[in-house]
């Protein structure tokens, strides 16, 4: 799942907790999944590193992708 979906899901969980009268058991389960989602989003955001690549067309619709290191050239 990508970051956008994760953020969306986190928002949905918070809304569900706020709007629905869930049995406490379910509320806690939901809360737990919300917290683990929040943790993984934080990790993803803090540890992400930008990837830059060059796309070269070999033939029609055949591409090779080469890493591009801007600092070394």
């Amino acid at each position, binding site marked *: 799942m990508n970051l956008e979906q994760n*953020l969306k899901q*986190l928002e949905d969980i918070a809304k569900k907790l706020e709007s629905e009268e869930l049995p406490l058991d379910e509320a806690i389960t939901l809360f737990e999944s919300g917290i683990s989602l929040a943790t993984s989003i934080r990790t993803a955001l803090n540890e992400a590193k930008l990837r830059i690549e060059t796309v070269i067309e070999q033939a029609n619709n055949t591409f090779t992708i080469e890493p591009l290191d801007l600092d070394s050239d």
Partner: protein
Amino acid sequence: MESRHVFTVSELNTTARTALEQGIGPVWVQGEVTDLTKAPSGHLYFTLKDETSQLSAVRFKSRTSLLAPMTIEPGTIVLAQGMLTVYEPRGRYQFIVSILQPLGAGALQRAFEQLKRKLHEEGLFSQEAKQELPPIPQTIGIITSSQGAALRDVQSVLARRWPHVRLLLFPSAVQGESAPRELRQALDRALSFSTSTEPLDVLILTRGGGSAEDLAAFNDEALARALFACPIPLISAVGHEIDFSIADFVADRRAPTPSAAAEMAVPDRSEALGFVSSTTHRMQRQLLSRWREDFDAFRLHAGVCLLRSPQRRFETYEQRLDLGLSATLRNVTSHWQRKKSLSRHWTEILRLSDPALPLTRGYSLTVRQEDGRPLRSVAGCVAGEIIETRLADGRLISRVKEVSPDES
């Protein structure tokens, strides 16, 4: 009767020549070049004209050699400095040019305005045709030179603001004769890559600042039409703030600079982290109030039962009820205690994991503005560097005045 002075032809032409040369002197004139002849001698003969009038002009070779080589062609609008004189052998007056400047930029500007009007009328700039940018792109295509400053600018903004993205370069020349064609080809490549290999969420078409001629490739009509047909949301950022290109008008969004294009393309990491924190707080608050509600309801219910039970007349019922109640109470209480400790456990984890909490107690977090990394030590920090201090209710941007490590 006085005898009149009769001029010879030569005398009259000389008088006329002197009158013109001294009476008017060196002047600037603007006109379109026509009837251009390059004589074997190296002199350049041409006519300058406007809508209603013409002027013979000559630029002698001796003058030509003093100037940078340039291409003057019929139809070129030029600015010429020179002297109006009479060519006495023929009795014709002509303009002897000493400085000749093609008004290239002016002609370019006119062509630009014409094309802009035409495409505008065709609806290529219409707001209805503009696409929304995706809120969080995963893959961004960039069409620019692999050598230019624009690519570096985009890279550094993305790395700081939202590194959670893949940037794919479709290299192209961004100035010179081949640039319009190369830009179209790069766009084609990006589109077929997006269809066949991996979808691109946003395309950035960009180059850094330059002269009007340098930026001209982005005013190409065929490129404009290809950009208009591009199904991927497109940001155009050509040159500086003050430069507008046709590509800028056709694109879904125009950014004043390459860096601004990068900022437009992605959200801000620190905002997203703020959202995660505040959402975590919301969930926490909600769970606690949910737990309190249930607990209050239970207490109320249990209280009513306990009050009633001694009123019962039938001892057996009373006893049974007492027994039942205490068993229920035991079950329910232990159930709630389990839940309560679970809830405390998570609350504590939450509380501790929230980086904003220490801020409310007066601690602050200082990050290097360049890369957003927290500063853990003064080592590696240099005077003059910009740092960002996060407090509970905002941030301070400061410049480091002095670095003074503690003495150990």
